[in-house]
Structure formats: structure tokens, C-alpha cells
């Protein structure tokens, strides 16, 4: 079906997305960049800031894109990032 889609889904309003509040413990970050590299939604980016360990910790670009997969928490070797899930009904832009 190579048809072009020209109308937005009518039930978009009913869609639910898992949401999360991302918690960064900046001074605990050692700047490995794993979370930035592996986040599938490209939520994180390196900041210009310099933290207590003398490296650039990540910064949150667009929290609304986060789908609460929790992978950043899983890959962070220094437990510097974790998420708090909060179910929400809001619309989210999807990649």
C-alpha cells in the first residue's frame, strides 16, 4: 500500500503514552555519554556545563519525547540518571 497518508489519525486523542520525569544527578556523571548515545528517542544531549568531576554531563532536550523505556538508567555505569514513570494521556510527538 504505497498510499500517501494525508489525514491525521482520528483517534489520536485517545492514545496514551508512558511518560517519565528524568532525574539527572549531574555531579555523579563521569561523561561517558552512554545514555546520550543509546536513548532511542534522542532525548538527551551533551551540555556545555562542567560538573564536579570536570566533565560535560547530559542535558534534557525534550522530556516530552521520553517514552520511559528506562534504558538510560540501565546503561549508566555511575547511576547518575534515573526516571520516574508517570502515566499520562497527553499527546506526544512521535518520531
Amino acid at each position, binding site marked *: 500500500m504505497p*498510499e500517501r*497518508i494525508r*489525514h491525521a*489519525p*482520528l483517534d489520536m486523542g485517545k492514545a496514551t503514552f508512558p511518560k517519565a520525569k528524568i532525574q539527572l544527578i549531574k555531579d555523579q556523571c563521569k561523561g561517558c555519554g552512554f545514555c546520550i548515545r543509546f536513548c*532511542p528517542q534522542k532525548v538527551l544531549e551533551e551540555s556545555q556545563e562542567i560538573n564536579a568531576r570536570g566533565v560535560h554531563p547530559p542535558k534534557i532536550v525534550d522530556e516530552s519525547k521520553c517514552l520511559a*523505556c528506562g534504558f538510560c538508567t540501565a546503561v549508566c555505569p555511575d547511576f547518575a540518571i534515573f526516571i520516574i514513570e508517570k502515566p499520562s494521556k497527553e499527546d506526544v510527538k512521535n518520531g
Partner: protein
Amino acid sequence: MGAEEKEKTNPREDDGEIRIGVYVCHCGLNIAGSVDCGEVAKFAATLPHVVWAQDNRYTCSDQGQEQIKKDIKEHKLNRVVVASCSPRLHEPTFRKTCEDAGLNKYLFEMANIREHCSWVHLYDRQSATEKAKDLVKMAVAKAARLQSAKEIEVPIIRKALVIGGGVAGIQAALDLADTGYKVYLVEKEPSIGGMMARIDKTFPTMDCSICILAPKMSDVGHHPNIELLANSEVTDVKGYIGNFHVKILKRPRFVKNDCSACGECSKVCPVIAPNKFDAGLAIRHAIYTPFAQAVPSTYIIDMNLCLNKDGVTVCDKCMKACERQAIDFEMKPETVEIDVGTIIVAIGADVFDPSSLQNYGYGKYLNVITSLEFERLINAGGPSGGHLIRPSDLEIPRRVAFIQCVGSRSDKSGRLYCSNVCCMNTIKDSLLIKEHWPETEIHVFYVDIRAYGKGFEDLYKRARKEGVLFIRGLPAEIVEDRKTHNLWLVGENTLQKELYKVNVDMAILSVGLEPRKDSEPIQRLLTLSRTQDGFFMEAHPKLRPVDAATGGIFFAGCAESPKDIKDSVTQASAAAARAGILMAKGKVTVEAITPIFYPERCKVCGLCAKVCPYNAIVLNKELKRVELVKAACGGCGTCAAECPFDALTQDHFTDEQIISQIDAVTESDADKKIVAFCCNWCAYAGADFAGVSRMQYPPSVRIIRTMCSGRVAPKFVERAFARGAAAVLVAGCHPGDCHYINANYQTQKRVERLWKKMEQQGLDKERLQLLWASAAEGERFASKIREMNRLVEKVSPEEINNAKKVFEKALGGD
């Protein structure tokens, strides 16, 4: 298999005195109307070897055939020539007649004096008669050199491949499987069902579409004889009728067959996208099933969307949710190889995208939708649960308009043909609305309502009775009221000759069907041709409507032309029957038009092996010889044209035979004639089509038929010029459409070489023309002849002589 001598089946016929019988058919007035058949027969009697010549009203009638049989015995005929219609039509008939009388069928030859003569020179009886004589002379000359031959038999693999799992493909697969054949059904989407699965009710019966389709779909899923390959595509096809070797790419679903379709995974998947099956009007998740009744029911992960798309398992929500542990992110694409004897093509059609019609504002105005979107909108399984709502505010529209012929019947904004289903579809849709929301005001803007099928007129009348307003005249434009998103339709009521301005809440564009945009690989792999409309072309529009020109391949459903479900199913069953007949026979004879090899002349240069599109000639470097695999040979003859040492020729199209035809044409008045070499499948068929359509062109052309333009050796062209022909035409299929994969690339190369030579020798290279014309392009052929005729009138005697001198060598051997 190395050197192979030509088999002689019946030496009596070939050796000794040649006795030719010639029959000139009147075809009622079809030929006799513009050709003096009696005179042609008289002329034929004077030709060498002709011992019997007569004209008759219908040679193809029983009577006519009996006459031939009688004469073969009575006059000891050992060659028969019939001058009548196209060999593409009646050659098999007369060959059978000869066989019945004990004459090898390869000793029969035809002169096409109807499609190539009487019908295209309707108003010039004298020239038409002269041309008919020439055509008979050519046929007699070739007949004298014909040799009997035995056809080889190839076994047919008793398995079939069906490409496309719409209703047509489903029906064809089930019919064949029920007959007892193994069937592979390849569908490129995750589920079979096609268009029919997406529509709500079906006209004219108003059955629920998926309710009648779903049982068939599930039969396919469970049938022991059917192997369903969904989410898959055919990537390669090799071989020939009865013996196709097919490669299929099976894309991974990332969900194993253990899936019980519980849907728990989908619920937890955090990613969504518009569902294509719902025309984007509803959402789905990255792990999904396109619709509830999908077959196979196994879920699928859309890897472009899944959070794990980069190969790292970031998200495992679905995995955790799946009790049966069916999810497998490690799945890889697989290539499946199968061997089948027959193939049914049922890839359906696309719907027209009306975005290009700016005056209708599709894509710009929210409440302008297509009929396909409407089907999803009113479908209980669709995004609105079957409630008719309009996109702008999700309210029930009170006034609705349908606009017909969007993308159909127009050269400029869509396709030239009528799409067959849109009128009835609109009538059906209007009744559906009336059924649930009887107060809705419905306007249908149309040009003609085509209610041609069984039960269609009744449905149309019902719609009128229910109060649907039919207005003749299409809106010139749709304009949106910004505030309300209501639409103004402005047009002319052409029956009242009055302008209308109609205000509605929603407008539905009744879009047409068009050929699949992505069907090019299928066309190429199976060497199919298309009509001008772009749909696949059948072998004969009336008598072989489901056969492709390529042996062993059949069509079903909208792939062949726009049609409704009933016709798709009928055609599918027909295709299954046709394929079944072949497989029941278990074997097929291959025409004896394979190469004849003279090993003593071969210098093992290997050029033939290089040009053979079927790899039927192999250069064995170790043994220093070329080897011929006749069963693999497609019969194009391009090897024979390539061999510089005359070590190869083609059976039934030998050098000697073709040269005799050239010589017959150029015996008299060569300087006023065009010698045309036309390939059987495209150019010759195109010339036939010009005849059928009565397109008139000058009578100066004489067509010599070869199976492929790749058979045309440069020496043939040179010989024609050497004997004083005014012009030569080499005509074949469009590049890419060649019936023999790509043999016509060689044609192009050879003609280019000849052009170069002509230029170097100071000859006008315009006198040699190359034409690509499909079987549907009669007008292209006719206008080429008109153009070349102007050239013929201009060519001076000096130029003719110069060419004679330049190509003198080609006469060698005389």
C-alpha cells in the same frame, strides 16, 4: 550435450520434390473487400514449387480445413501456405490441420494479408493486391525452405506460485490447492486480504466485506496444500513454462508463530504511528496486527518504529508482556527458493492520489476525503467504530457530497480509462449512510453513472428512491469555509445548464484505480507486457483473457484491469483452471525454434554464450567447445545473429529462410519498398493491432516476422540494401520489455554498428530505422511507416546504388 545434429523426423517430406499448396482466404469481405484474392491465387500458381493454388471464402472454416487435408493427400502437397489473417491468431489452427493430414506442422507457413494488408490499405485496392502478392511470394519462398521438426517435451512441475494475496490471489490459491496442487502464496504486506479487507460493505449485495472474506482468508492459513509467505516479496525468477525457479525474500516479523494474537504486547508498546491499513485514520503501535481478522494472525514489529531499531535492545516491554515468549528481536531476513510450474499474478491495483488536483483541495481541507478513507470511516472495525464522522470536528456530517471520476477518464488529471468500480461504490456508500442516518442530505456529482452489472441498476434505483440526489456535472472547485470547515462545491448542472453552489459538511472524492506503482520488478522478472493504461496485458483480449503472453503465467484480479470483486474472483478461478490444465497435462512441448548448431564451423569464440539471455549456451573452456542446453533455450535466436562464422542458426527461422524472404521482397521494385523485421511479441503484434484498429498507412512496407528482434543479423539488413531496398526497419519490444529478457539490447547494438558503418560509407543512415513498439502501440507503428514512406519517396537511384555497392559482400554465396 555438445554438438547436436538436427533431427529429421520425416525425411520423405523434406527430401525430394517440393510441392507447395497455397490458399488465399477472402475472410468474407475482410480481405476480399480491398484485395483481389482471385488474382493473388492466380499469381501464386505461377510461383516456383507451387503445385496447387486457390482462393476460398473462409479458409479457417471446417470446410476450408477439410479442403487442405484433401489436397495434401490428393496433390501430394508437402508444404502448405495460407494467406489470411495474422499467424498470431490462426497459425495453431492450420498447423493442426496439416498434422491431421500427416504433414509435420513445421512445414506450414502463413502470409498475413489481413492485419498487415487489407485492413491497413482499405482504400487502395490495387496496391493492396500487389502487396498481398508480395507477401504470398515471401511465404512461398520461405515454405520451400521449411524443414520438419520435432518438438521437445518438458515436464511441468506440479506446483504453483500465486503473487498477491488479495481476494483474487486467495481464490486462485484455494482453487488450485483444492484441486490438489501445492501452492505458494506470496504477499508483501503482513496480512493477506488486499483491498477487499479494507472496504466496509460490498456492492451490489451489500454484504459485509470482511465477513465474507475472513473465512476464505483463514482457509488459506490452514490449507495443507498452501504455504503462505506473508511480508515477503519475489526477488528473482528464472526458467520457463513448467520450470520456474523463484527466489522469495521473507522479511522478519520479529514475532514467532507461537504468537496467539492476544494483543497484550501492543497494549504496552510505547510507540504509535498511523495504521496504513486504516488509510492512516487510526493509530497502531510498533508491535501490531493490521486488523483483527489478519492472516497470518501472528503480530509483527515495525522495525522502523520500534525503539530497538538500532539493534540494541533498549525496550523490552512487549517481550515482558508476551506470555508465550513469541518475540524474537534476532530474526533475520530469509531467502526462500522454490520451483514451480505455473505462476499467477494477482497484485491488484492502487488507488489514485488526488493531491495533484488542486481545485479539490485534498490534503488541504480536512473534510475532503477519498472513497477509500470513507470505507475505513464507516467500517465498524475502523477508527470511528463505524460512526460516520468528519475529520475536522468528529461530528456527524448532515450534508455529504460524492464526486465521481476523480482520477479517471481524464488525460490531464489522472487516467484515460473508466475505473469500473467507483460509480457503484458511491451508490453503495450513499445507501450505507441513508441506512444509518436517513436524514443525511447526499449529493452525487457525476458525469455518467455506469451501473452495468447484475443487480447494479437495482441498487442505483434504490439510491434514487432513498432520496440521494444525483447531479450531472462535476464541481469545478471546492472551497472551504474557514470558520466552519464546511465546503462549497461550485459547478455546472449540465442537464439544467445552470450553475450550482452546494454547501456540504464533507466531500468524498470517488477515486479511481491505477496500476500498482511498485509492480515494475514483477513485470521485469516475469517479462510481462502492459497495455497503454499500464495494466498487465493478456495474450488475447477475448480468447485468452487470463493468460500472459509468457507461457505458464496467468493474471487474476485488478492487476489485469480495474474490476469489482465478483469479476476478480471469476478471473481468479479462470486463472487457476488455466494453470491447472497445464499442470494436469504434466508436460509441455517447447516450440522447435531452438538453435541448430554446426560444430564444424564453430571457432569457439564464445560470443553466442555471451549474448544468450537464458544461459542456454555455455562456453566450456576446458573442453574448448560450446555446449547447448535446448530445454533452457527461450527461442530468441540472438545467438544465431551473433555468430560470426554461421555456426548457429535458428530452427524455423534459419538464415536461408529469412534470406529467401528478403530476396522475394527485393526481387522487383525494391527501391520503393521498406523491408521490416518485426519481433513476434511487440512490433509484429503492434502491426496487427494497427490492422485491427484499421489505422491506414502506406503500402510500401513488407514485414518479415522473427521471434525476437535479436534474431535480426546484420547480414539480413545488409542484404536488403545490397538488393536495392529503399529502407529497412528493425522493430522490437521496448528496452526492458523484451520477451526474451534482454535480447533486444543486442538488436540495439547491432543497429548502432550498422548506422556507424553507413555513416562512414557516406550513406544516409536514416534509411535504417530502429523502432520500439509494444503490442498496444499500433499507432506508433503506423506513424513510423508513414514517416519512413516519406523517406522512400525521397531516396535517389544513386543512393540506392551506393548502398548496393557498399553492402555488395552481403550477397556472397549467390
